[in-house]
């Protein structure tokens, strides 16, 4: 392995798990053109976005990536322009002189380097789409371009490693089943110790009502969240189960490789069908939720059961009186971070707020909030250690929003946000603890 790495994030050396034939470096520009041409034939979003931008610049000041890094190529308009100039040269309609006026440029090695760099500085947060008068969603372009780069053999080491783990073990962390079972037993003991009750965390229970699909980080770092979920299902009297086939709601394929995204989705749907559950409940994970909510039915539909979010499920228990919360258990000032793929991407805006108001005493809104909320800076899987300088820069606008609330607890119900925000808050010296919404519900639940 080469010890000198030019690219941040590091690029993967082994792409066998993605079943992609690597392209020789000198052949990449030519291959990239062919791939772009193909994509333009099946992605209307990509073609439209390359056609209708007027360079008005309304997006620039709305992009946390540009605000945090001050790199002009991180303005959404400039980021997409890296592709648009190639599109203008080779694919756009009209006479070549017209296209030259619009900045048409050849596709060379340097362009590919810029693509790799700048399409890994976009968090696919979709905030630009809210402020763009044409509704240009740069995340769509970033997803397409990362896919194109993957076909050229350019995938980050971090993402490739996760896909490999997922394929091998059914979770992104690569935790083998015996270790998961050991961990769950341990958590059951912890629950017994905490509550004195026998609260199960069941696995592979056929014909359970609910198949709960957590993020695998709930089995490693965010265990409070999983224990809270177990308590809530116990109290509500709902039969539920985990699956040994898949314990991962975070679908990294969405970020850069559609076949991987489809396979992940298929795996969960199959697990649900085999267990014969009534519905699948997705745990705290932003983009995973967007995939289940928006794409799964398209890919694997029609589904024999709905895929709902944990918050919708719990909210129903709360509204029907099957569970109750004691707010006084959470007396701290709590603010809520809208994960991009909940608010803009997945229609979860009011549900978590209703739950929060029910289980904490002091809830304060952040500014901007809801669909206008800034990304944590870790979105689209920018969680690599080697990209730490970038990550804290991307998170800077969010850090200032959180600081302004004066909150003691930052509720961030998404596994990526939970991994990213503590690092960002620490770096920018914002004194706040990051928790999932499940954690807070678990504390307030009256058993």
């Amino acid at each position: 392995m080469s010890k000198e790495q030019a690219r941040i994030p590091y690029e993967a050396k082994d792409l066998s798990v993605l079943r992609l034939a690597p392209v020789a470096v000198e052949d990449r520009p030519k291959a990239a053109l062919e791939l772009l041409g193909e994509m333009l034939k099946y992605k209307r979003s990509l073609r439209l976005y390359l056609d209708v931008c007027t360079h008005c610049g309304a997006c620039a000041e709305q992009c946390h990536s540009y605000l945090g890094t001050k790199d002009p190529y991180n303005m959404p308009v400039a980021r997409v322009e890296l592709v648009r100039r190639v599109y203008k040269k080779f694919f756009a309609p009209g006479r070549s002189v017209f296209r030259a006026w619009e900045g048409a440029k050849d596709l060379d090695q340097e362009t590919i380097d810029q693509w790799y760099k700048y399409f890994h500085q976009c968090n696919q947060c979709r905030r630009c789409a809210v402020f763009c008068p044409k509704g240009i969603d740069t995340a769509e372009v970033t997803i397409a371009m990362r896919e194109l780069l993957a076909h050229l053999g350019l995938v980050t080491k971090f993402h490739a490693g996760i896909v490999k783990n997922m394929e091998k073990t059914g979770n992104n962390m690569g935790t083998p089943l015996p270790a998961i079972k050991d961990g769950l037993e341990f958590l059951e003991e912890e629950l017994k110790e905490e509550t004195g009750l026998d609260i199960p965390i069941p696995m592979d229970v056929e014909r359970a009502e609910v198949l709960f699909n957590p993020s695998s980080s709930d089995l490693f770092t965010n265990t409070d969240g999983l224990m809270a979920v177990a308590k809530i299902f116990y109290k509500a009297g709902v039969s539920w189960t985990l699956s040994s086939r898949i314990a991962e709601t975070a679908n990294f394929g969405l970020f850069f490789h559609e076949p991987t995204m489809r396979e992940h989705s298929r795996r969960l749907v199959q697990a649900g069908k085999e267990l014969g559950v009534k519905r699948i409940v997705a745990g705290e994970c932003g983009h995973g939720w967007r995939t289940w909510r928006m794409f799964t039915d398209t890919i694997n539909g029609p589904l024999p059961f709905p895929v709902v979010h944990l918050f919708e499920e719990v909210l129903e228990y709360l509204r029907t009186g099957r569970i109750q919360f004691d707010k006084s258990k959470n007396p701290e000032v709590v603010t809520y971070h809208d994960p991009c793929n909940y608010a803009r991407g997945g229609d979860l805006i009011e549900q978590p707020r209703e739950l929060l108001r029910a289980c904490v005493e002091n809830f304060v809104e952040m500014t901007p909030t809801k669909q206008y909320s800034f990304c944590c800076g870790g979105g689209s899987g920018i969680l690599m250690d080697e990209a730490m300088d970038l990550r804290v820069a991307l998170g800077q606008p969010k850090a200032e929003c959180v600081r302004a609330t004066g909150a003691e607890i930052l509720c961030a119900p998404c596994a990526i946000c939970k991994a990213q925000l503590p690092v960002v808050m620490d770096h920018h010296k914002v004194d706040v603890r990051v928790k999932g919404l499940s954690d807070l519900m678990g504390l307030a639940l009256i058993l």
Partner: protein
Amino acid sequence: MSVLFGWVLPYIVLIVFLGGMIHRMLVWAHVPVPFKLTVFPSPDTTGGAVLDLAKEAVGFRSLWRGKKSLWFGAWLFHIALALVLIGHFVGITFLGHQFTLFGATPEQSERLSILFGTYAGAALLIGLVFLTIRRLASPTMRFISNFADYLVLVLLLGIIGSGMYMRFFNEVPYGAVRDYLAGLFTFRPVLPPDNQAFLFHFTLVELLLLYFPSSKLMHACGLFFSRWLITRPYERQVILK
């Protein structure tokens, strides 16, 4: 020369303009949309989505959410443009007598026509100058601008400037203009009015229309396609609001 310029060229321009525009919309319409890309919160029904689209197209709500100054410049320019275009069709067709339909005398109608036209033209010019200065003054705007962005501004400044010049200093007889345009539309061409300001104005419009389908001006149509992707409703599998 005047046959080519006054009679043939306008038809070529119209064919290129309409044909090019339709062609590009057909291309967009034929590319599939594999996934639902709705950005939330979004309307639940198709009617709601159409209403959303209309509000956006008329009120520029996305820009309003961001910097108000850009919203002001862009909105003023586009609304004034719409008014001026309507004014051209109506004013030239009725020779300024359109308001007699609402009970005004011909003299009153002409005065109203001139008044509205002047205000709308001034608003259009103010909007355009604002957008031009905005693009030129900021280094970040210059970074994202290319030749075509400036070219469109120059063409528009020429068109609107010459229009206002005719309004204030060199009034072109409506009658001659109407006869010329009516001749073109009925395929019985007459000579264009022999007025340099008018010919300058008319030629720049032709150049702009020729360039339109190949340029970013296609956002006028593309807007509805691209916004539909993120606005279209997507019913929930389980409703729990």
